[in-house]
């Protein structure tokens, strides 16, 4: 039933499972090796739950040295390795395979060093995104990228997928906030790149590692940049009759020279779903809603908001709600932040992640609605409008194979549209298995071959997360 193909299972590896397990058992402490089917069940999928594969084994090392030993062992024995942080990937980036071990970093989650004068901190890669900020927030600092899954997702996974979040309009994504890594490559060699300085010598390998979806190495430690929290933050909520008006308001705000920390967009279905769940007090008689957040000194905020509200009025805003208290601000965000959960309560959904130029937002929204309707399905749009990163939630019934197929096809149509208007397949979720077979729409064979050759420098035999990112039928291009 599943539409996305996996490579054939290497029967020879599966046949050697007992010996492989015995070998792994010698490399990590007992708590670090999971091999019973019952316990491995938790690792057979990630956030793309329509696809499940039982791994050969799950290895959860406690140190970089253990990761190194496991990688060297897998390299020597031709065993594939699927890296895993918290398994929140919406693109299937951490989905297992029967002939591959899962190598998870979740047991390595310590804060190693906090260095305020140099605005950086070093952490083990299994720490959650939110725990990084949690470690420094008592002292008034934060780590900027804030993906919706930040309570669960790890910095290792964030690095793998170059995660973003609602506030990257101002602060950038993971690649703009990472200063260094300790990484284990497939033969077990440990490399250190970057650190507390703003740049590192030689080629920008750090930039290459971010977003490489676990195909270059296993990151075990990260040095991230931390920033002082703003003195004050204030969101304002705007309701518009139409998505087009909201879309042109976004473009006008950006063109005016103000850079809010976030501009979030919700269409009518999303407003209704979120309001029913979160009771955030969203207006239900509008066609689209924007949440615009500004920050700075209190006096700054007032001036910025005045400008933004004036722009919104020029674009026929019908509802303006400025938060008067922290509680009202939290309420404005509550609906938006619960969007995925609220949608999940009424239907199964797949969440697309294409990015489009902001000038194309209105057009792409309209076409998205038409595309999904043509498959007889429903869609809710809730996304980061300031940077054009769209998240249509296509609702379907996961137990109906025909609906799943339709939902995936509608999603693919939308992503092709994103590329056509000058955007890309994925803004922050990654390619994984989900968008792997669409890569042709964005890249030529030459582009893909060039990427695959670079990838192979790190992992010549393609043992690291091999079923992901690059179309299976394109693998031959590398040597063409």
């Amino acid at each position: 039933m599943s539409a996305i193909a996996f490579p054939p299972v290497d029967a020879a590896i599966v046949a050697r499972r007992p010996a492989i397990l015995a070998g792994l058992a010698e490399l990590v402490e007992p708590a670090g090796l999971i091999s019973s089917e019952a316990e491995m069940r938790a690792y057979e999928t990630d956030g793309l739950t329509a696809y499940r594969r039982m791994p050969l084994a799950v290895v959860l090392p406690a140190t970089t040295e253990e990761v190194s030993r496991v990688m060297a062992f897998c390299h020597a024995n031709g065993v594939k390795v699927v890296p895993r942080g918290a398994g929140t990937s919406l693109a299937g980036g951490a989905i297992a395979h029967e002939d591959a071990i899962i190598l998870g970093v979740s047991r390595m989650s310590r804060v190693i060093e906090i260095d305020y004068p140099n605005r950086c901190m070093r952490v083990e890669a299994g720490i959650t995104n939110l725990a990084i900020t949690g470690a420094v927030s008592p002292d008034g600092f934060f780590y900027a990228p804030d993906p919706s899954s930040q309570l669960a997702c790890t910095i290792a996974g964030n690095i793998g997928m170059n995660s973003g979040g609602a506030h990257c309009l101002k602060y950038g994504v993971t690649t703009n906030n990472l200063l260094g890594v300790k990484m284990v490559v497939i033969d077990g060699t440990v490399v250190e790149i970057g650190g507390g300085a703003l740049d590192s010598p030689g080629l920008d390998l750090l930039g290459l590692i971010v977003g490489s979806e676990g195909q270059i190495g296993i990151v075990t430690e990260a040095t991230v940049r931390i920033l002082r929290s703003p003195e004050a933050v204030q969101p304002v909520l705007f309701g518009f009759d139409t998505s087009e008006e909201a879309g042109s308001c976004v473009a006008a705000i950006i063109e005016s020279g103000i850079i809010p920390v976030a501009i979030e967009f919700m269409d009518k279905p999303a407003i209704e779903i979120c309001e029913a769940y979160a009771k955030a007090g969203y207006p239900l008689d509008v066609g689209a809603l924007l949440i615009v957040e500004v920050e700075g000194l209190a006096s700054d905020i007032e001036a910025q908001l005045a400008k933004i509200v004036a722009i919104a009025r020029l674009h026929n805003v019908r509802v303006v709600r400025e938060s008067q208290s922290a509680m009202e601000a939290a309420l404005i965000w509550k609906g938006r932040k619960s969007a995925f959960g609220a949608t999940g309560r009424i239907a199964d959904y797949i969440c697309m992640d294409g990015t489009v130029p902001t000038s194309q937002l209105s057009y792409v929204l309209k076409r998205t609605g038409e595309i999904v309707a043509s498959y007889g399905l429903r869609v809710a749009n809730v996304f980061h409008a300031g940077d054009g990163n769209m998240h249509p939630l296509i609702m379907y019934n996961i137990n109906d194979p025909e609906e799943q197929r339709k939902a995936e096809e509608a999603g693919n149509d939308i992503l092709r549209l994103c590329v056509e208007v000058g955007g890309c397949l994925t803004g922050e979720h990654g390619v994984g298995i989900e968008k792997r077979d669409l890569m042709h729409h964005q890249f030529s064979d030459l582009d893909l071959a060039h990427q695959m050759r670079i990838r192979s420098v790190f992992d010549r035999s393609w043992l690291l997360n091999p079923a992901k990112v690059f179309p299976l039928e394109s693998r031959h291009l590398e040597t063409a």
Partner: protein
Amino acid sequence: MAHVFTPKSETEAADIVRGLTAPVSIRGSGTRSGLGRTVDAEDALSTRGLDGISFYEPAEMMMSVRAGTPVSVVEQTLAAKGQMLPFEPADHRGVYGTEGEPTFGAVAACNISGPRRIQAGAARDSIVGLRFVNGRGEIIKSGGRVMKNVTGLDLVKLTCGSYGSLAVLTEITFKVLPRPERASTLVLEGLDDMDAVAVLTRAMGSAFEVSGAAYLPAHDGEPARTLLRLEGMASSVRDRMTALQTVLSSTASIRILDDDATAALWRDVRDGAFVAMPADNALWRVSVKPTQGPALIAALADIPLDRYFFDWSGGLVWLSVAPTGDAGAAPIRAAVSELGGHATLIRAPDHIRRSVDVFQPLPGALMKITSGIKQSSDPRRLLNPGVMYPGI
């Protein structure tokens, strides 16, 4: 006789690379040709013929330019729409004593980034899309024209800062920023290295969005100056300037510079103007943790150091060293190994450039990866061979 290939189109550039029988040096206008190791190539390939802005959408804060487009054209076009480059690329003509129009391709290829890097990132952080010709003569694209993009390997980052050793850039797409209404500089006079960096790092650790943090030691009767730049809406800069002084609570004597003085001063910080002369001195740029800037200077007491200054809150140290012996290479590299960071020799007489490592030597495992990436991108070693490391 040396030949300079000057393709007028991307296709022509690809044809030229495919037809090469010997290595070429890659250049724009050559205003920074002293940057990097000397390249062993008779012939050159100039991107100067790939000229012009191909896309500019102010409302999207995005621009695409062909590699040979002058930086000045980019900056003027942006200024006309009230926008600017976030990363403030240096103009190296003063440092190298060169003439001509610096090109945007060189900025991208060498990841040239100025004082605002501490707030807005480096060139590589703003550049979101590239088109280039690899050493096989293939036209490759990576990234696009949107900020958030994790589709495929990020060859944009890898290629920015590869000094033309992996590819001939043909087109660069980058994010721009609104030009601030006001830019002011707080100058604190008379601090020593340690106190200055303490002030700089405290300011950077504040919420006041400092966009420049530099230190100029006392020179020629002028007192030492610790510089903090604030940019933004006029009312915001005014309020933050007041709040910043309260937080710093420094007893140093204080001046505040207006927009024009701020622009002129930070242009000099950006371009390394304070260490450009004497022209035959060796120049080093050293990246360390900001708090290690003073420790680096202290560790170099025995080298013929003429002048120095700090940018990036102390994290970027410019050194002007008399061109004797190895121009301080051994002690500088030793100090950097001790403190963490890396040193780049950005200007030196040819015999020194040939005899010392221009870039920080890499550990074996990273050198092997670097070599593999060169091999996969440019298997015939045609593009700027040896510009970063021997044999790469």
